[in-house]
C-alpha cells in the first residue's frame, strides 16, 4: 500500500516537471534539453539555501527563479543568437553542470535534520508518504490553475499561436522571439521548481540527478496523450499530471519484475519509446484493417 502512495506522491511532484516541458515540447513545438540542467539546478539551489539557513519556502521560490534565468539564457541564445534550439539547450545544460557544482560547492548535499516544506505539523501528522502526496497535489494544482488562466489571456493565446504558426503570429504583430523566450523561461522555472520539491522529498541534491529528466517528463506527456486521446488544451494540462502518476505505476510494476533502481533510465527510455510508437502502430493497424475489409459499402 505505502509503495503505491509513494508512487502517487512522486507522480504528482513530477507532474510539475511534465507540465513545464509541455509548454515547450507541445505548445512551442520544440525539444528543450535545458531541462536536464535546470532540474538539478533547482534541487541544488533549494538544498544549498536551506543548508545556509533560508526558509524552505524562500529556497523553493528562488530555485524556481534560478531555473527561469537558465531558460531565459537558452531563449536568448536561440532567438537572438540564432543557435538551433536543440544545441542552445545542450549548451546551457552543459554549463549548468558546472554552475550546480558551484552552487553546492560539492557534487551532492544532504538535508539531514534540516527543515523542508514537508516538515510542518500538518504534513507530519499524516500517515507515511501522504506528505508528498499532499504537497505535490497542492503545487501541481496551483501551477495547473495559473497556467489555465494564463493560456486564456490575450498573451497566452499569442503564446499558443507562436507555437502553432509563427508566420501567422508575426503577421498579426506578435513578437515570436519574446514568446519563445518567455516560454523557455517559465518552462524551466517550473522544472527547477520540480527539482527543488524532489530534492526536499528525497532529502538531498546531486549534480547528476538531471540525467533522464527529459525522458521522464516526456513520458508523462505522451502517456497522458495516449491514454486520453483528443482533449482541449486545459484538459491536456491535467492529463500530463495523470500521465506522470501512471508512469510511476508502470515503473513500479517493472521494478517488481526484478530490475533495480540503476536500470531505471534504461526502463524509462524503453517505456517512452513504446508509448511514442503506439500512435504509429495504431495507424498502421487501421490501414491494414481497411485493406482487409475493403472499402465500406455506400
Amino acid at each position, binding site marked *: 500500500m505505502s509503495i503505491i502512495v509513494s508512487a502517487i506522491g512522486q507522480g504528482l511532484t513530477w507532474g510539475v516537471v511534465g507540465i513545464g516541458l509541455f509548454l515547450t515540447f507541445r505548445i512551442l513545438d520544440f525539444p528543450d534539453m535545458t531541462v536536464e540542467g535546470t532540474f538539478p539546478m533547482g534541487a541544488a539551489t533549494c538544498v544549498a539555501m536551506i543548508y545556509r539557513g533560508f526558509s524552505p519556502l524562500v529556497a523553493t521560490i528562488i530555485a524556481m527563479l534560478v531555473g527561469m534565468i537558465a531558460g531565459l539564457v537558452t531563449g536568448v541564445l536561440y532567438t537572438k543568437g540564432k543557435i538551433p534550439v536543440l544545441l542552445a539547450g545542450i549548451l546551457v545544460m552543459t554549463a549548468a553542470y558546472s554552475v550546480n557544482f558551484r552552487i553546492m560547492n560539492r557534487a551532492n548535499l544532504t538535508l539531514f535534520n534540516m527543515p523542508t516544506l514537508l516538515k510542518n505539523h500538518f504534513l507530519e501528522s499524516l500517515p507515511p508518504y501522504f506528505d508528498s502526496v499532499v504537497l505535490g497535489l497542492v503545487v501541481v494544482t496551483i501551477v495547473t490553475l495559473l497556467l489555465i*488562466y*494564463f493560456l*486564456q*489571456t*490575450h*498573451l*497566452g*493565446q*499569442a503564446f*499558443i*499561436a507562436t507555437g*502553432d*504558426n509563427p*508566420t*501567422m*503570429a*508575426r*503577421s*498579426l*504583430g*506578435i*513578437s515570436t522571439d519574446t514568446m519563445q523566450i518567455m516560454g523557455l523561461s517559465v518552462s524551466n522555472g517550473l522544472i527547477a521548481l520540480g527539482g527543488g520539491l524532489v530534492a526536499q522529498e528525497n532529502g538531498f541534491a546531486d549534480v547528476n540527478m538531471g540525467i533522464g529528466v527529459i525522458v521522464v517528463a516526456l513520458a508523462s506527456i505522451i502517456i497522458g496523450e495516449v491514454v486520453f486521446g483528443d482533449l482541449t488544451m486545459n484538459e491536456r494540462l491535467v492529463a500530463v499530471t495523470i500521465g506522470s502518476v501512471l508512469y510511476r505505476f508502470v515503473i513500479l510494476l517493472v521494478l517488481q519484475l526484478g530490475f533495480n533502481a540503476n536500470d531505471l533510465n534504461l526502463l524509462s527510455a524503453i517505456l517512452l519509446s513504446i508509448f511514442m510508437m503506439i500512435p504509429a502502430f495504431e495507424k498502421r493497424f487501421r490501414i491494414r484493417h481497411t485493406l482487409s475489409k475493403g472499402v465500406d459499402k455506400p
Partner: protein
Amino acid sequence: MTEPIFQLKNCTVTVNQGTPEQINILDDVNLDIFAGDFITVLGSNGAGKSTLFNVIGGDLPLSSGKILLHGKDITHMSVARRTKFLSRVFQDPKMGTAPRMTVAENLLLSLKRGESRGLAPRHLKQNMGKFKQITSTMENGLEDRLNTATGKLSGGQRQALSFLMATIKRPEILLLDEHTAALDPQTSQQLMTATNNKIKQEKLTCLMITHHLDDALEYGNRLIVMDSGKITSDFSNEEKQKLTKKQMLNFFTDIDG
C-alpha cells in the same frame, strides 16, 4: 488629388551584392498609393511582385530608397510594428491561420493585430455573436464551424478565414498575395467575389497580386505591371477599362489566359 497614404521612393533591393550574380530584384521602384486604391499587380514569375510585397511588409530590407507612411519615413520599421496599419493574406492557406486553434480563437487573435497583448482574459464568448455575423458573409459554412480547429477546414474555408482575419480590424493597407491561387476555380471565384464586395463596402486600400488576366481586368481601380524588378506600366481606372485581354497578353509570356 489628395496626398498618398503610402509611398515607395526609389526603392531598390540588391541580392548577391559584390558577386558576379549581383542583381536588383527590385529596381528603383516608385509607387504612390492613395486611400481607396484597389491595385491589381500583374507580372510574370520573378518580375518582383512578391519582393514588392515583402518590402512593403518589412520582411525584406531595402538596399536603397525610402518608404513613407503619411509622409513619415518608416523604411526601418519592424514587421511587428507595421502590422498596426498593414495586414496580409498569403497564397498558401496554411500560412495565414493557426491549425490547432479554433476558427473563433484565430479571429480573436486577429482582432488585436498590431496591439500589445496583456494578461487580461481573452473574452472569447462575448465575441461569438460578432464572429458568427462576420463569418456568415463568406457564404461557405464557416459560421457553423467557429469551434472547429482550423486545420480541419477545407482550403477554401481556411483562406476565407485568413481574409477575414486580415480585415476584421480595418487595415490601412491590405496585401493580397495571390490569395485565391491555391483554390479550385469555383471556390476561388467565390472568395474573389467576397473579397471584392468587402473591399468596396469598406473602401479598403488594397494591393492584390494575381496571375489571372481576367481578375486583373475585372477587379480593382488601378493596375500595375511589373517586369524585371521594375514597375513598367501603371494604368488608372479609365485606362484600365479600355484595356483588352489581347493587349495585356502582349506584356507577358507565362500568364494564364
